Each structure stands twice: as C-alpha cells, then as structure tokens.
C-alpha cells in the first residue's frame, strides 16, 4: 500500500484530503506543520506528500527544501496544495523540487488528475 503524508495546518482540509486519498488506496499519515512533517519523514519516508504552503513553525516551502536535502528525500512525489495561486509562487515551488501543484479549492477530480500526472495513481 502506498503511503501519503498530508501536511496542512487545517484539520478540516486534512480530513477532506484523507478521505479522498484513502479512496485511492493510500495509507495516510498527517502533520500540521513542516517541522512535524520532517520528523514523520525521518521515521518513514512516504511515497507521496500533499503539502500546504502557509503553516506555523515551518511552512511548506521550507519543508520542501529541507526534505529534498535529506537522505532519500528525493524519492517522494510532492504535490503542493495551497491557496497561493499565482505564477510566481508556482514557479518557486516547482524550482524547489515540487512535482505538481494544486490551487485550492480542490475536489476529488483535481487530486486524482494531479496524482495521475505524477504517476501515483
């Protein structure tokens, strides 16, 4: 079973995303900021990461840079999922090593399309 780490400071978003991704057969872990997420990745590197941008403690962008510098941190497919919906943010995220980018609000079809795009489904 593929593992997906959902990182978002909103428990509602995490719940919605969990329901969608469990429907696609993923085993889910959750984190509410980048710091917690890095700890989770050190314990076990997931196959997929759904990543919010704006979060307390450590934001999604900082997390992504730290992740890609970790041993084995190049392996997970990272899909940003954020309200930041301008080209400048998208370009910054992609240059930092994101694989895909979802602009909130999202639905099941969008998550499915993006996860298919990076070969996770």
């Amino acid at each position: 079973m593929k593992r997906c780490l959902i990182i978002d400071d909103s428990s509602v978003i995490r719940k919605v995303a969990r329901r969608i991704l469990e429907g696609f057969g993923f085993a889910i872990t959750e984190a509410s900021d980048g710091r917690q997420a890095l700890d989770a990745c050190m314990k076990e590197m997931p196959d997929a990461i759904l990543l919010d941008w704006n979060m307390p403690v450590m934001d999604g962008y900082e997390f992504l840079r730290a992740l890609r510098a970790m041993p084995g941190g190049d392996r997970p497919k990272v899909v940003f999922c954020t309200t930041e919906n301008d080209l400048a943010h998208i370009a910054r995220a992609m240059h930092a090593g994101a694989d895909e980018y979802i602009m909130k609000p999202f639905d099941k079809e969008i998550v499915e399309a993006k996860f298919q795009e990076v070969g996770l489904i």
Partner: protein
Amino acid sequence: MSPQDYEFLCKLLKERSGLVLAPDKQYLVESRLLPVARKAGCDTLEALVRKLKAPGSEPLKVEVTEAMTINESFFFRDKIPYDRFRDTVIPDMMQKRAVQRKLRIWSAACSTGQEPYSLAMMLDGFSTLAGWQFDIIATDISNDVLDKARSGSYSQFEVQRGLPISMLMQHFEQVGDQWRLSAKIRKMVQFRQLNLLTDFSILGQFDAVFCRNVLIYFDQPTKVDVLTRIRQRLAPDGYFVLGAAETVVGVGDLFSPVPDKRGLYCPTVKREAAPKLALVSASGGQRVA
C-alpha cells in the same frame, strides 16, 4: 413533463443534432432545459414546449439544441489518445509529410476547446516540428461553447483537470481569476461552427481526425453516415481517434483499429485499391506503408 412533450423534444433534438435520448433521460432534459426555459420567460418545460411549437421559435430551437449537446471537457482528457498522438501519430506523420511539412488536424465536436488546444500544446512541444505549418480546425454545433473556446480563458478548476502544471506555467497567463492561453497557442487553432449532420466537405482533407464522445449519442444509421463522410475527409494514410468508450464495430469496414493502439484507427484500405498495408512494424510500433 408529459410523455408527449418529452417525445416532442426528443424528435426536435434528433432532427437537429442527431442526439438520441433514451426514455430514461428526462432528468437530463429537465436539468439542462429549465435554465433555457426561464431565460425565455417560461416557468415550466410545458410552457417551453408550447413556445417551441409556436411560429418564430427558430432562435429558441437553436438554444435548446445547444443546451442539450454541450459536453464537459478537460485538457488532455483520458490521456491515452494524446499519448497515441504524441508517440504514434506525430512521429509517423513527420515521415509521411516530410516534404509538405504541413499537418492538418480536425477536432470534431471540440466543445469548449480543451481538445484542440491540448493538441496544439503537444505539437508546440516538438522541437523537431519547428518550421512546420499546422492547421488545427476545431468545430462544434454550439456557438456558445465556441465563444468560450475562442477566448482561450479557463477557470482555476478547468486548468487543474488534466493539465500538467508545467504546461500551465508555459502556456497560460493569469487574467483576474481566469487563466488565459498564450496567443501563440490560441493562434494555432481555428474554430468553426459545424453540425456534423450537415455536409462538411468544405473543410478539406485531414491527416488526423479526433471525434471523441460524440458518436455515442447518435443512432446507428446516423453514426454510419457521419463516419462515412469523416472517412472521406481523412487522408488515406491518416489517423482517426475515437473516445475511450467507442468502437467502429457495426459500422462496416470504414476504419481499422491500429493493432495494440486502442482508440486509434486508420482508414481501411481495400485490397484492389492498393497493396495491403503492413500496419505495425515489429520494432517501433509505427505504421509503415
């Protein structure tokens, strides 16, 4: 809605667009036509039907037909047809048209434009096609969807279904809350209003025709008629692409499936007309004459 009214609407739609509605599609008619009815000042579908039967109802008939034939569309919908286009059709056509350096492609029933624009973005990605001329003709029965298609503007939802983020970054600009395709890609596609039931020989000859998720709405004789005329518009060495759920079974021997390339067809070449084609080479999977 009374059975008589439903029957009236079904007959109207069949005559005008070829659309065949099953008896259990009343809900679809209601959901799509109630907004049209309200716009026309009718409270109910009964009132709409009365108005359609009255003299001078031609514009309303057009509107009803358009509302019923609109299809939801995504960029790179179903993925596989586009993989076929990129991996089989383009490489093969690059050889076959190496002298002319020109490709003509028809997106039949293009709806809001995602299909022809997806093809245009794909062609634009081939550096080996630099200097080639592309004619992408995109047609639909509905003027409403063509207006939207021509604008090349899509909502945030629409650009996230099937469109890779790299292509969004490369080919779109943000205009307010919409995403607009670059002029370069928009200029590659020419949109025209066309009802597939009418003569379309004026469009000329194509190297590839995409006709996806349209024929499923037609009855068998209509399907055969449309396919026969599409076959006439397709170059003998060209390609024909159908939707994921469609086949050419039962429509005679107009098209033959390309082996191991589901959804991709080529015009059937009669033995007496030309030597039999070897359809697939063992190595590259490309079609060779």
